[in-house]
């Protein structure tokens, strides 16, 4: 089985700053991790490889430092890793990202399945999976917890607010994967050593034949108008006593005043 996994490297700390001009996050120089949901997607890909044989290719679009995330993927078992990077991609929102990634996935090979994490924890939009699927004209099933190969395609278990659904999909497909699906395996020592010397295939806008109008800031329909701190409540009260009994008494008193209990 030929498996592609799209991952995103996301900032790990609250040391992120905002570029005042473009109102986008400054990502360079901030400690980063693989987006946690993408780890679930990668683990599903590795499990499919364990079960059905084949190859796992990991693709990410990001700044050059995203290479670290790709090496981490090698250390847990990814066979091939591709970095899609170009100054022209800077500022891409999800539409532009989906377009660019779809070009990369199609250039990278003929995949039976393309996997994504449910959402990226920095943007939370959950749009890139369905976006790439659309550009590639393959069906997409979101919130996937389990997947198995069938003669005609795949059978997947999808999580909803109320329980589960069992879906059948024909041919090649894209899945977005939820946290409940699995826990990413630990790297092995051999894996880490492989990761250290792994070749990172790197592609820019020209390698992909990307149309200028569809990438980077030019390709993004939404813009960030402003960023601000969430409003701090006024009329806040604080209770602090050495004796917890006293604190609780005061708390209950105030709650009764406001008729909450």
């Amino acid at each position: 089985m030929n498996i592609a996994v799209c991952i995103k490297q996301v900032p790990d700390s609250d040391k992120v700053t905002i570029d005042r001009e473009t109102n986008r996050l400054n990502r360079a120089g901030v400690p980063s991790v693989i987006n946690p949901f993408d780890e679930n997607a990668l683990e599903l890909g590795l499990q499919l490889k364990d079960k059905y044989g084949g190859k796992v290719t990991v693709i990410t679009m990001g700044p050059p430092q995203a290479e670290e995330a790709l090496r981490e993927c090698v250390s847990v078992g990814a066979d091939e890793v591709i970095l899609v990077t170009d100054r022209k991609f800077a500022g891409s929102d999800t539409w532009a990202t989906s377009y660019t990634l779809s070009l990369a996935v199609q250039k990278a090979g003929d995949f039976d399945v393309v996997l994504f994490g449910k959402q990226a924890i920095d943007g939370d939009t959950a749009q890139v999976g369905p976006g790439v699927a659309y550009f590639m004209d393959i069906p997409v099933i979101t919130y996937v917890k389990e997947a198995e190969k069938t003669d005609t395609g795949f059978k997947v278990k999808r999580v909803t607010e109320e329980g589960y659904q069992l879906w059948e999909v024909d041919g090649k497909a894209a899945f977005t994967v939820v946290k409940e699906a699995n826990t990413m395996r630990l790297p092995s020592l051999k894996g880490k050593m492989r990761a250290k010397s792994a070749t990172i295939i790197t592609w820019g806008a020209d390698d992909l034949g990307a149309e200028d109008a569809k990438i980077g800031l030019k390709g993004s329909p939404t813009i960030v108008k402003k960023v601000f701190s969430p409003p701090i409540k006024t009329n806040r009260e604080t209770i602090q006593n050495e004796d917890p009994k006293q604190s609780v008494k005061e708390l209950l008193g105030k709650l009764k005043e406001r008729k909450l209990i």
Partner: protein
Amino acid sequence: MEYFLTDEQKMIVELSRKITEEHIIPNRARLDEEEIFPTEILKIIADADLYGLYIPEAYGGFGGGVMDFILAVEEFSRGCIGVSVSFAANALGIYPVLAFGTEEQKQKFLPPIAAGTKQAAFGLTEANAGSDAGGVQTTAELVGDHYVLNGTKQWITNGGEAEIYTVIAITDKAKGARGASAFIVEKGTPGFTFGKKEDKLGIRASATRELVFQDCKIPKANLLGKEGMGFIVAMKNLDHSRPGIAAQGVGLAQGAMEAAVKYSRERVQFGKPISAFQANQHKIANMATEIEAARCLLYQTARTIDSGNKDFSMESAMCKLYATDVANKVANEALQIFGGYGYMREYPVEKMFRDAKILQIYEGTNEIQRNVIALDAIKKSAKQDKK
């Protein structure tokens, strides 16, 4: 402190630390309370390729040395030495094969240990043979194509869980110290059974059992080295594995100290965190310094062994002695810093306190270690005089 680790050694530390944080620490209290052998954690360690660190690549290992191995043991020990001894005892159990085995024996017994699919254990100690290893009474009689073993080994770590045992038994009583031989015995061999699991003060995740041999027939080919080499095998084995125990000491002490320092920053008395009080600060300073000294001695010893030095008994004894004494001191002080909370089983430090004690006893008591070191110093002094 710069330890001059290679890139691969740094990977070993990272990987071991991750396993400790994600799997050992969250489970250690339960493993201790219920005396559960850490099978799952050992499997995770094996899957991470950490089981065969000291085993040559030809047999499926990483091809590293003592230094690579003790780095992993140290990290696991920060979490729980019950788990780390279950891991480290494999080295003690299989090193005799590595050092003295025939090519055939190595091909048979090393790969499953390197892969972590089997566990190993070392059987020397008996009821009458602790520090006085010469008091071994288990016999091995050559009968035709087999050796027949009779006797009982006591307090064997990984006893009952391991599949591969290296055992010291007397083949010729008349020859005294030269009358013992080393053998490989596999679990399931008829006549080889185990005693009950011992109920211990600490390292309760580790399985400690008697090995009982009753007319246990093993193939002649399971003799390690030559007849009469038994104690040489045993001594070389212990010399080689003592750094592992030292690593347990360093790791445990580090874990205890870190817990105590963190607690001292959070615990407020007399309007201040207790870390502000000089008495506690001095405790912390002593702990930190002694741990660092123990670590440096350990790393230096490991590198000395890896450099090919043939004789390292004294260094090995030193690093074991020092690190394990430090571990006990630190565990005690750490508990003291925790005060009343330290005495409660809800907090991790009382387990470290209980666990630490065995470090001064097994793999050669610290008294024996001092004998070794003293004799070496005396010998050196005598040599000086001869010049």
